[in-house]
């Protein structure tokens, strides 16, 4: 039993950089390019770990600590997310709140590390990050609340286990929840249409500009943390929305991982098909996501 639960976590730790490779490959294929290798992020992480590092003279210990706090928070949050059709490693009633707040703590330190440089660019990114996450968090909670109302559960693993038994009438609610979670995924992982992960220095940037001054091992920690976070939200989406068929655990796990990669392909397709929204319109998108899940709560 324990091995099955640990499998998902191991997958997350090992495969999450691959997920970003899939997103990038999808974008490249749609654009008619060959694209970077699927394993590019692994190479980058490995290279950065051995590289030297440049610290700004303005910074303090917070700048160096921030990336590691961020990474540790995401790793612990991943312990709480059910994966591969099994329960999560750590599962208890109310774990979803701890998960959301661990991500909040990661954000807290990322923002402080950005402000530590004293650069106007990073200040701007930090300011936008707190604005958008403040809107994404209620949307996430409302989506989970809608599922809780349907299933009567309040731990992520229980929810994931009982979505299979929902009646067809719950389909509309779950559809709305899925839309919200997908929008929250795009926003929290700074993907198009909220943020553009490929540019570093446009005035529209949010997440990438916050980590502008990080280099070497710290940057690798940040990149790895970002990959884990994308995995976390994709896992949440799949575990809560895709009921796993009965069967051998290996089959379930395989199917589940395939679904997560489908989400990555979906992200890639959205990025290829959409332009980034104007910044003033992003709050509307996120409030819209919250409203969708609020409707889901009402209907459920």
């Amino acid at each position, binding site marked *: 039993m324990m091995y099955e639960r640990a499998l998902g976590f191991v997958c997350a730790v090992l495969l999450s950089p691959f997920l970003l490779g899939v997103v990038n490959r999808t974008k490249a294929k749609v654009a008619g390019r060959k694209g970077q290798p699927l394993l590019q992020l692994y190479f980058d992480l490995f290279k950065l770990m051995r590289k030297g590092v440049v610290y700004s003279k303005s910074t303090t210990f917070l700048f160096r600590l921030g990336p590691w706090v961020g990474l540790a928070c995401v790793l612990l949050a991943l312990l709480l997310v059910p994966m591969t059709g099994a329960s999560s490693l750590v599962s208890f009633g109310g774990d979803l709140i701890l998960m959301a707040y661990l991500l909040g703590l990661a954000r807290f330190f990322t923002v402080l590390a950005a402000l530590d440089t004293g650069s106007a660019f990073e200040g701007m990114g930090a300011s936008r990050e707190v604005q958008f996450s403040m809107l994404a968090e209620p949307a996430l909670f409302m989506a989970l609340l809608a599922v809780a109302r349907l299933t009567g559960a309040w731990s992520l693993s229980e929810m994931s286990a009982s979505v299979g038994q929902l009646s067809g*009438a719950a389909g*509309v609610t779950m559809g709305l929840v899925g839309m919200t979670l997908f929008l929250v995924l795009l926003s929290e992982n700074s993907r198009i249409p909220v943020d553009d992960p490929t540019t570093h220095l446009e005035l529209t940037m949010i997440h990438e500009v916050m980590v502008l001054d990080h280099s070497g091992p710290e940057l690798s920690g940040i990149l790895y943390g970002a990959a884990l976070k994308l995995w976390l939200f994709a896992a949440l989406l799949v575990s809560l929305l895709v009921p796993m068929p009965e069967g051998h655990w290996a089959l379930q796990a395989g199917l589940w991982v395939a679904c997560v990669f489908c989400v990555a392909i979906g992200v890639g397709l959205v990025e290829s098909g959409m332009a980034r929204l104007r910044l003033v319109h992003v709050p509307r998108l996120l409030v819209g996501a919250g409203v969708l899940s609020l409707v889901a709560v009402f209907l459920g």
Partner: protein
Amino acid sequence: MGITELLLAAMVLGNIYLFLSSRILVYVKIAAFQGLVLGALSLLGHLDDMELRMGVIVGATTIVKGGLLPWFLARTVRDTGIRREAEPVVGYVFSSLIGVGLLGISMWVVGNLPLVEGSAMQRTVAVGLFTAFSGLFLCVARASIMSQAVGYLVLENGVFLAGMAFQGEAPLLVELGVLLDVAVAVFLMAVMIHSVRREFSSLDADRLRELRD
């Protein structure tokens, strides 16, 4: 989950999009989409007792609501060149929250009506009421005349949907009458919008106050 529920959910999503969007062409498209959804819904409702007369009525409403009126409005948008709402009276974010409130109110109202709890009819009436509220809200909270014209159309969609819940022939005929009224109103408004634009070179409904005594 039945197709009916799916279509009702589509109506609700259309209304929410209405609250969040600033493009008038989007408003028109949503109104048209809702018209088509209504056509599908009334077709579903009358599948078992379909006869020619009913088919003609349903077909006519669908064509008028989902095609003719929106097309006409879209043309007006194109001619006048007013593509987006410049100055909403109520901000978009706040509008969407009001939208949730309106949905809550309509569900609460319907919960107090003597209808069977959890029935399809109850749901249909609730969504109809919400759609009607959304149309009214659009009229109130958006400054441009174009939005108001679309607002009336959405309002009518809601009334039609609520009426449809009480399946039967007579309401449908009444509906047809209402539809004619709205159609005439929208045509009149479109003509007026052209004249207003010529006179004032603006389509801000607030400026119509200059016409008062």
